[in-house]
């Protein structure tokens, strides 16, 4: 039985603390290079600050964590990679990146509408001795390859090994919790199997306050957001809002 792992992030609860970013970077052996900038950095989980554009007492702000949306339909990066270095794992719905096969052509980065992919512009390096603190479950990538969030696939792997060791076929959901989900101090990130209607994440995704970014493009992202505030939900689509109604259907394929 295949799963469709996804997330629902409650933007009313995100305080922009950045714990998820830190936990993700530590879990995934992201090198602490100090020379990168906002445009050349490596942040598989990135929290962005947004506002309603007003000033003074009417100003409202919120924080939106952005990572790979694990798109389900016509996954843009999968479609364009010239050597199949990224594929959708049918059993879990996770979009898997293989840095060992990546050529570094960066076509997938051009294709991703969420800018969720990051290039290793430098060789990874740590201060002397810090390599001892690297997470053994995750490979260190070299320069010249693209990487992104993979829903802490190493943790899924550990959960599967744990289940196999006790003779079970299915993993215990409590054993597979991505680092960002575990780290969030307000529990804003909810993770689960969207294919299971009883899963709390799946139920959250079907609530009226839930939305997805750029849903009209038709990539069917599996990361949902939810907010009670209308101005936050309005950020789902591009600056021109929903665009003029032309009567034409959304093109697929």
């Amino acid at each position, binding site marked *: 039985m295949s799963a469709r792992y996804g997330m629902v992030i409650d933007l009313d609860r995100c305080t922009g603390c950045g714990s998820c970013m830190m936990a993700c970077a530590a879990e995934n052996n992201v090198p602490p290079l100090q*020379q990168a900038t906002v*445009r*050349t*950095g490596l942040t598989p989980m990135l929290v*962005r600050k*947004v506002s309603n554009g007003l000033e003074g007492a009417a100003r409202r702000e919120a924080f*939106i964590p952005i990572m790979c949306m694990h798109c389900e339909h*016509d996954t*843009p990066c999968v*479609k*364009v*990679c*010239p*050597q*199949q*270095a990224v594929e959708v794992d049918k059993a879990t719905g996770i979009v898997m990146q293989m840095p060992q*096969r*990546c*050529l*570094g*052509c*960066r*076509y997938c*980065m*051009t*294709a991703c*509408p*969420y*800018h969720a992919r*990051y290039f*290793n*512009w*430098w*060789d990874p390096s740590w201060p002397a001795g810090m390599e001892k603190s690297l997470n053994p479950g995750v490979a260190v990538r*070299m*320069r*010249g*390859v*693209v990487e992104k969030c993979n829903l802490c696939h190493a943790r899924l792997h550990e959960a599967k090994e744990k289940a196999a060791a006790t003779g079970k076929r299915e993993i215990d959901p409590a054993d597979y919790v991505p680092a960002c989900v575990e780290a969030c101090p307000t529990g804003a990130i909810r993770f689960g199997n969207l294919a299971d209607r009883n899963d709390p994440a799946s139920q959250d995704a079907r609530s009226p306050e839930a939305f997805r*970014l*750029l849903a*009209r*493009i*038709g*990539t069917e992202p599996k990361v949902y957001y939810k907010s009670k505030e209308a101005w936050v939900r*309005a*950020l*789902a*689509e*591009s600056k*021109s*809002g*929903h*665009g*003029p109604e*032309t009567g*034409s*259907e*959304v*093109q697929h394929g």
Partner: protein
Amino acid sequence: MASAVFSDSRWIARGEERTSLSRFLFWLAPWAIVLVVGIYAAGLCLYYGLNQTNMDNRFAFGLWIFLDLGIIALGAGAFFTGFLVYILKRSELRPILNTAVVVGFICYSGAVAILMIDVGQPLRAWFTFWHPNTHSMLTEVTFCISCYLLVLCLEYVPILLRSRQLRKLPSLLVFEHQLHKLVPVLAGVGTLLSFFHQGSLGGLYGVLRGRPFAFRTGFFIWPSTFFLFILSAIASGPSFLMLVAATVEKVTGRRFVPQELFRRLGFISGVLLALYVAGKSIDTLIWLNFTSPSEGFAPWQYYSHKPFGTPILFAEIVLFGLLPAFLLTYRRSAARRGWLLSAAALACAGVLLNRFVLTVQTLAVPTLAFDEFLQYTPSWQEVASFAGVIAYGVIVYSLSYRYLPLFAPSRGENTHVSGD
């Protein structure tokens, strides 16, 4: 010929006159310097990594990709001229054929060289052949460009073998003769390959569902940009050849190409350009009114970022499209060399502008509601590498011009080259 201690007159084709060796080296020297600087810049990028460039996670493609697409479009004159001469039997274009092949060779080998630096892991370039992705336009581009480069090398070899010294070796003469029989086949294969890769280069951007600025619908799996790129390439190819030939004539002070040939090339270019403008206009209208809005992007937001406003669209279609198309085909303007060459330059500029809009502007335009319009300026390493490629091209062409009978009639033909 100036008498010097060193003279390369043995290498210059019999009956041809070329400038003295020292003047020739004087001409090559600055280009050689540029080439060396370019190789150094490229070496820095290979050694230290792509952090030497100003590309970043938002501008994953930058100057290099724009120029790659540009020179491949301009180098389309190679396959198109071959197609016209060997398949459509338009033999009046023969005098320009060798130049077309050399220009094509330069453009494609230069583009491939830059691509090898542009990727993060050049040693893994062969993975595309090992694990090809049939859904990806880039796989198609990789295969076709590699094969086409091979074809161009094979087309270049007969020209090389006509070198005065090499012709003295009988086995090479025989080899060249056999190759010569192959050339029409190569032309046909080249046309097919070029059709696909010129199109796929357009398809690279047209399939990007996540970039509504570039995304187009089209025919079956091919977005409209597939066909528009082919059209614009074959429209600008002949124009670029005209410019190259005119430059050679200017630099050497001699005439090789009959004016009539210029007019013919111009006319072909103009007609195709007109077709391209028509196609592009229809495509733009469809995109602005249907494709883009259906993805939730109203067109006005693309053009609200100064200075990339609607004037660019106007420039692409009218100033660098309709105008040169008219000038190249209208009898009065086409008769004058100055107008003809200016129009050819406009046409080439139009193609470059089109490639720029699609490669660079696509990445600058925001997608998410909370994104901004982004700026990008290439670093000196990027500019120097590319200048190195241009220098490489000038050097290769200069050497070919000096030592090979580029404009002379080939063996077995009776075409007569007359000065103008």
